């Protein structure tokens, strides 16, 4: 089998930190090759090296049997490599066609030929079955379509080797399946796909070969068929992790959070919530499933007072908190783990202790008479670092010096140790590796057992299935239906997530 890519002894350091150590990787041509590994294992770094965004400190890159040096992405593109990044890099104000041809514009007489670009985009879209409207502005499109555009960009550059970094994190199961169809179509045309994912089912389903990175090293490259899911997990974390549904407790208390006919708009002032109603009881985890961008984040923001609602009511322990400020809602007993932890959840440049202080800086004993109680803060920080297993040099380490999973733990430590009765948890494990995921899930269960009412928003179905007592599916700002946590039908959820009410589905919309 000819090798599309061969990485030989790649080492990449960031200062003293070794992100990739002596990595050898062989990718067969015409295959789908999955790369898995815990957060911070060095997957993205390795791909960045392969795409010319980073320069390896040691090692060689061979492409189609030739040794190449890739000083920049342009060289990688010239060598036939294309990369779809974990975070999309599209320009919102430009049209689909402009985005696809950005950097390689079609020009006539020195000027950009928009008509020709639109035509070529339409052709490509047809050829590869990636449906888009070339003239639409990207800022108005959904995430799924944005990804198609990213792939079109790569294809328009004539890539034969396509790297996708966590492409399914933002997709519905159906969309993911469509994507896999597309990828299979690519390999059928002789192209090669490298695919990074934290979803092991997907890896099992779609890949031909799989490489596992652990702590920057390639610990195994095997044909997928030879491995089971638990083999993969073991390779990744070096130990066994359970995937089963976690045990439920029977005792559910009174209703803590009650939402009725809630309406709100998103940042673009388009309707984001359209009459959402549900309730969450003490000691219960209510899951919200749905494809990202269907109102889940707005829901959490409205409930936590960060976004105004235009209609409807929210009650906490029987008290109306509609329209209350974030401060009042916090004081009333709502904790919030935001979905975008780096933007909202922490101040990346501040120390762990300063991050733990947020929201309670006015409360005794954190502060007295307006003066921050530094010794108490330090004491608490140390205790929380220990309890939540935050891996950091010390309480004064800045948040940004920690890995994603550890940053998430800071947020949890802060929100879970307050006096909240109700916790809004948005994507607690997004981009967090399996080991940390387990710890976080354990922490959430503990909160439930302590009698808190928990609203758990996640785009990862397996997470909801694992934790939630009931799952509400959101689509287009409404709740499409409710599914009891103990008899989940993935197919049914998938259809609800896509906005289709299955005929078998009997639950009424929005009822708590």
């Amino acid at each position, binding site marked *: 089998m000819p090798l599309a890519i061969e990485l030989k002894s790649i080492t990449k350091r960031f200062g003293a930190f070794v992100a990739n150590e002596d990595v050898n990787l062989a990718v067969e041509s015409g295959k789908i090759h999955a790369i898995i590994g815990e957060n911070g294992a060095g997957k993205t770094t390795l791909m960045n090296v392969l795409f010319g965004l980073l320069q390896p400190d040691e090692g060689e890159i061979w492409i189609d049997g030739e040794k190449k040096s890739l000083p920049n992405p342009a060289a990688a593109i010239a060598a036939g490599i294309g990369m779809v990044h974990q975070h999309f890099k599209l320009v919102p104000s430009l049209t689909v066609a402009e985005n696809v041809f950005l950097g390689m514009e079609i020009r006539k007489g020195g000027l950009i030929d928009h008509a020709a670009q639109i035509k070529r985009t339409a052709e490509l879209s047809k050829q590869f079955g990636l449906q888009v409207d070339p003239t639409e502005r990207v800022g108005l499109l959904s995430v799924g379509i944005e990804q198609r555009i990213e792939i079109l960009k790569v294809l328009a550059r004539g890539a034969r080797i396509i790297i996708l970094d966590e492409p399914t994190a933002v997709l519905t199961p159906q969309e993911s399946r469509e994507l896999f169809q597309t990828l299979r179509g690519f390999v059928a045309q002789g192209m090669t796909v490298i695919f990074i994912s934290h979803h092991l089912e997907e890896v099992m389903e779609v890949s031909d070969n799989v490489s596992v990175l652990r702590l920057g090293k390639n610990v195994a490259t095997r044909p997928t068929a030879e491995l089971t899911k638990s083999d993969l997990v073991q390779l990744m974390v070096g130990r066994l992790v359970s995937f089963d549904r976690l045990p439920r407790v029977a005792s559910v208390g009174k209703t803590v959070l009650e939402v009725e006919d809630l309406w709100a708009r998103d940042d673009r002032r388009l309707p984001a919530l359209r009459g959402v109603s549900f309730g969450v009881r003490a000691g219960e985890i209510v899951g919200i499933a749905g494809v990202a961008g269907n109102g889940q984040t707005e829901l959490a923001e409205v409930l*936590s007072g960060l976004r105004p609602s235009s209609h409807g009511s929210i009650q906490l322990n029987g008290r109306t908190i509609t329209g209350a400020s*974030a401060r009042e809602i916090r004081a009333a007993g709502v904790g919030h783990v935001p979905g975008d932890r780096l*933007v909202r959840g*922490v*101040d990346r440049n501040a120390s762990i202790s300063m991050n733990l202080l947020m929201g309670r800086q006015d409360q005794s004993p954190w502060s007295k008479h307006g003066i*921050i109680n530094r010794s108490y803060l330090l004491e608490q920080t140390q205790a929380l670092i220990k309890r939540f297993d935050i891996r950091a040099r010390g309480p004064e380490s800045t948040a940004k010096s920690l890995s994603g999973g550890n940053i998430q733990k800071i947020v949890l430590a802060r929100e879970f140790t307050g006096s909240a009765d109700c916790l809004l948890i948005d994507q607690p494990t997004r981009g967090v590796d399996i080991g940390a995921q387990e710890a976080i899930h354990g922490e959430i269960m503990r909160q439930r057992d302590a009698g808190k009412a928990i609203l758990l928003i996640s785009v990862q179905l397996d997470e909801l299935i694992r934790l939630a007592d009931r799952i509400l599916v959101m689509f287009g700002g409404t709740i499409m239906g409710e599914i009891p946590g103990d008899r989940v039908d993935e197919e049914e959820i998938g259809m609800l997530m896509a906005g289709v009410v299955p005929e078998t589905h009997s639950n009424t919309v929005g009822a708590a």
Partner: protein
Amino acid sequence: MSDRFDSLFGQGLAILFALGLGALVILTVDESPVRVFVTLLNGAFGSPERIAGTLLQTTPILICGIAACISFRGGLFNIGIEGQLFMGGFWATWVGFSFNLPPALHLLLAMAAAVIAGMAWIAIPAFFRARYKTNEVVSTILANYVAILFTSYLTINWFKRSGGQSETPPIFESAYLPELFSFSRLNWGLIIGLVLAVGVYLFFTRTARGYAVSEMGANPKFAEYGGIDIKKQTFLVLIASGAVGGLAGGVEALGVHHRFMEGFAPGFGFDGVIAALLANGNPIGTIFTALFFGALRSGSLLLEVDTTASREIITVIQALIILAVSAQITIRRKASDSTAGERRWKF
């Protein structure tokens, strides 16, 4: 500790580099750089009077710098300190000459007038910044022009004293901010500035409210999420900054000039902004940057008399130093932190 030393060392090198460039500029206008620098030093520190003169120059830069620090910490850019200073100066003077009151009371009222005038002058930009995110850099810069014209208008058209001076009548002695020494106009304004600097520093590092403001400056979304009322706090931070800007004007009017005139105190607002920026928004650091600028200014006054170089040379050197230090700050940040270039203060 060694980090701090490194930083000081780096700043020192940057300043030396700028002075070197400045020396070249001096050579092009046919003066001896050595003579210029010696004269500068002599002018700034050559005698108790001159040291007092340096501190006298430092005072308004320091107070304006603190006003700037307050807004920077909250992630805001009050470049309108100049305008607040003019308004503060005028209204303090107005209280000073319009009423005849018992000494301490009169001074207090005049100071209060300065503070209120500064707050009032930033209130509208602050409101629009808080409520509608109207860019405060531009609104406060534009407000500067209006403030300067408006105070001149009041001075010339309504309150002009007789004679050829474009100024108001002098204030009553009961409104004087007392001088510190008999041999200089240096006054309690300096003490006010120093106390403010320490106070503002403690406020930001030790108090819950200061923490809230700092976090709003560092990451407004985080602060909002943490229950901080961004709109209200934005308004308050700008108002506080304006209050200190107004106070700077009050100190100049009541402590130094004892009247208000056209061209009352031009440029101090900008000097303050730059002193605060060079100190990275730290009020204690601003004491030193303000002193540095004050020394340059005061040294330059002798320069004009004792050499053939003119004050503009100092302006040039000052600009070069700012440029060198601003580059140096970020080179260091780049070396120590992979997210260099992330701008702390955004527009």
